[in-house]
């Protein structure tokens, strides 16, 4: 069994290349490598720097171990949240599933192989966060080699528990949403429920396990001896054992903790495999089936529907339809626009005491004289919300092998690119709108300021839409066999997030000089209008040229 699983995992990894560098020019490749060679290490050094600072403080209280348990807990939570998306995409909506089902493989082999692949991908992200914490702690506390060995085991097993829990949740939901005739729709709803449920569960867990009165916490703090580590098990259950294993690496209790940590991870993984054997096939079979009505009243409907529309209007609407109807695109490009507000709102529902924090925050927000900074903050938020949806930064990639259609249509590339910008821009506006509504309802930002923000905050959305499309034109990922590769494993989304840092300089200036609202308004509007004009010009000249050159 093992061999087949490993073989399958290897094939799956080979099938999905990582960085999307194939086909791009040497210049692009070098540029990308330099960015990574600088960015990632500096990020890791940044974390190490902060950790060193924290360690100094915490050590004086005898609580230095908390760093490790926080590190593990936060990493596990990240793996869990992103794992939900990953698992839906790779276990269910990936096109290789249809290819794998007819093979003589046990369901648990398929799931195990896919699980392994996702775990390996997760190592890249967890390494960036975990490595600096681990090493810094080891060096600062002058730990023995045993510490590093324990740390390695903790690191390797870290994604297992959160990913297994995410997989179990998704598998159960998919089992029961595979019944309907309108599979795509129900499954997308299922995916949404899974995400809500997952996030909700996470918060409830924190609530139940981590709830303590301030007095109790004070007591723990004063006790020293890393007593605070216990608290973090509230964020993620395995965090405490992993941390204790590493802290007490030269004692028997450390070894026991390591055993519990490993045992728990393996147990949960076994439960996953057992469940997979039972229900995975029922959830995965018939993925591409769709409802069919065989409508006899076609003629009447035809008269209503066969109506002429404008080229750009129809093109944009079709782009949006495909985004909403393709489950992978819906989850990764559309849902994400609504996710940010949910991220913020869910804790409020599950943890009402947070209201106090919000109230304080709202008081800060309504202090006179900081309107300029609120505006600058709104610009940054809009920038990153809309960059993270990846709609324009994957809009050429999503065409894949069907790109040829866009080349024989008698529609100018200018118009086509405009429609692509529009689709990303419109959905980006949705997330910005939800942000503003959140600002009004929860943070009690005044209506006139909200209206003012609304009047200009579409500029950053337009900016990221333009940079996204330009990036994707220059580095499109067209050679994919499953939709998830077009969006999920598309590095262009990340590049576009990086591009969003450029205009954030304007906002930073507003913060640094505490500019007044009129000054901030003028500076930011001017900055973005200029940038957008420049990028628009670039798109309609170089971008169009690039589109003409693209061939599949």
């Amino acid at each position, binding site marked *: 069994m093992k061999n087949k699983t490993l073989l399958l995992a290897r094939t799956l990894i080979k099938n999905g290349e990582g960085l999307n560098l194939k086909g791009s020019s040497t210049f692009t490749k070098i540029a990308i490598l330099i960015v990574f060679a600088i960015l990632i290490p500096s990020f890791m050094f940044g974390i190490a720097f902060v950790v060193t600072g924290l360690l100094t403080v915490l050590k004086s209280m005898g609580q230095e171990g908390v760093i490790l348990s926080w590190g593990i807990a936060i990493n596990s939570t990240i793996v869990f949240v992103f794992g939900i998306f990953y698992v839906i995409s790779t276990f269910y909506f990936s096109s290789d599933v249809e290819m794998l089902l007819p093979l003589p493989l046990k369901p648990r082999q398929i799931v195990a192989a896919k699980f392994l692949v996702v775990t390996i991908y997760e190592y890249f992200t967890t390494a960036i966060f975990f490595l600096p914490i681990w090493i810094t702690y080891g060096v600062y506390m002058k730990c023995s080699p045993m510490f590093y060995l324990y740390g390695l085991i903790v690191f390797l097993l870290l994604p297992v528990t959160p990913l297994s829990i995410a997989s179990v949740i998704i598998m159960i939901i998919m089992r029961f949403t595979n019944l309907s005739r309108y599979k*795509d729709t129900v499954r997308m709803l299922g995916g949404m429920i899974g995400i809500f449920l997952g996030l909700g569960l996470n918060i409830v867990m924190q609530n139940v396990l981590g709830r303590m009165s301030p007095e109790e916490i004070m007591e723990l703090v004063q006790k020293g001896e890393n007593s605070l580590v216990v608290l973090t098990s509230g964020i993620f259950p395995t965090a405490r054992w992993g941390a204790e294993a590493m802290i007490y690496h030269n004692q028997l209790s450390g070894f026991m903790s390591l055993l519990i940590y490993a045992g728990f991870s393996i147990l949960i993984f076994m439960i996953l495999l057992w469940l997979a054997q039972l229900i995975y096939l029922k959830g995965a079979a018939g993925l*591409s*089936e*769709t*409802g*069919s*009505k*065989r*409508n*006899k009243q*076609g*003629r009447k*409907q*035809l*008269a209503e*529907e*066969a*109506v*002429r*529309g*404008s*080229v750009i*209007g*129809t*093109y944009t609407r*079709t782009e949006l*339809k*495909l985004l909403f*109807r*393709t489950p992978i695109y819906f989850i990764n490009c559309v849902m994400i626009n609504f996710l940010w507000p949910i991220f913020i709102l869910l804790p409020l529902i599950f943890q009402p005491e947070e209201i106090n924090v919000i109230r304080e925050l709202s008081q800060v927000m309504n202090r006179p004289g900081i309107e300029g900074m609120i505006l600058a903050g709104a610009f940054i938020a809009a920038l990153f919300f809309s960059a993270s949806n990846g709609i324009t930064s994957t809009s050429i990639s999503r065409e894949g092998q*069907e790109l*040829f*259609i866009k*080349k*024989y*249509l*008698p*529609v*100018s590339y200018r118009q086509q690119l405009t429609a692509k910008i529009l689709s990303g821009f419109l959905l980006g506006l949705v997330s910005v709108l939800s942000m503003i509504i959140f600002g009004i309802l929860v943070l009690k930002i005044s209506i006139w300021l909200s209206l003012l923000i609304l009047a200009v905050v579409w500029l950053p959305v337009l900016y990221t839409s333009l940079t996204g499309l330009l990036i994707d034109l220059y580095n499109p990922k067209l050679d994919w066999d499953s939709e998830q590769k077009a969006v999920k494993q598309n590095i262009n989304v990340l590049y576009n997030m990086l591009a969003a840092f450029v205009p954030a300089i304007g906002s930073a200036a507003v913060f640094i000089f505490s500019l007044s609202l009129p000054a901030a308004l003028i500076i930011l509007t001017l900055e973005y209008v200029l940038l957008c004009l420049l990028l628009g010009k670039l798109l309609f000249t170089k971008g169009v040229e690039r589109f*003409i*050159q693209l*061939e599949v």
Partner: protein
Amino acid sequence: MIELKNVSKTYGGTVKAVDNLSLTIPDGEIFGFLGPNGAGKTTTIKLIAGILNADSGTILVNGRDIEKEALEAKKQIGYVPDTPNMFLRLKGIEYLNFMADMYDVSTEERKERIERLSRHFGMTDVLQDRIQSYSHGMRQKIVLIGVLLHNPPVWILDEPMTGLDPRSSFLLKEMMREHADRGNTVFFSTHVLDVAEKVCDRVAIINKGQILFCGTMEEMQEHFKKNSSLESMFLELTESEE
């Protein structure tokens, strides 16, 4: 009318898929494009449709250059690709409306044509379903209907019969004949030599990107100095190239 002059296309700098190819297909003609797998048929067709950019040479469609007057040239063409798997998440009717809007077809015209063509091809009842739920042949038919909506003078079809049922295939052949007889151009590739023999006014046989033979059936038989079938001549021609 389609005119290719010294057209070449190399993929990725190595595979020479179309090699200095010249070809003229006048109005009123059904032209069959034959050749073994990988001969360069699809590549040639994609070059004409404006999907690929030629490395050298010119392509005119009804006198319009596909590169210099791209939009005008593209409006002349109705192109059916070899794989009909596109826009699977759209409903049949949505796809047809999309194509009609892209080609600027008025409401009245599209209504009449969608109704007539889908009745012809027996697709009326499934227009409200997603293309994903269609069979291979049904997908081909919806693509075909979408192409015919704007009434293009030049038809370019890449293996259009594969997967069609006998009735639809017959219907398509009839439509091709009518279209050519009205003074338009039909250019299609096929592996079915019987079809080529019966339907085409002229055929070309291509291998390794070069045209081995181009002419009417009679010319071909003259060329080979025997009264044999297209099949045996095709085999002889392409074999001698080995």
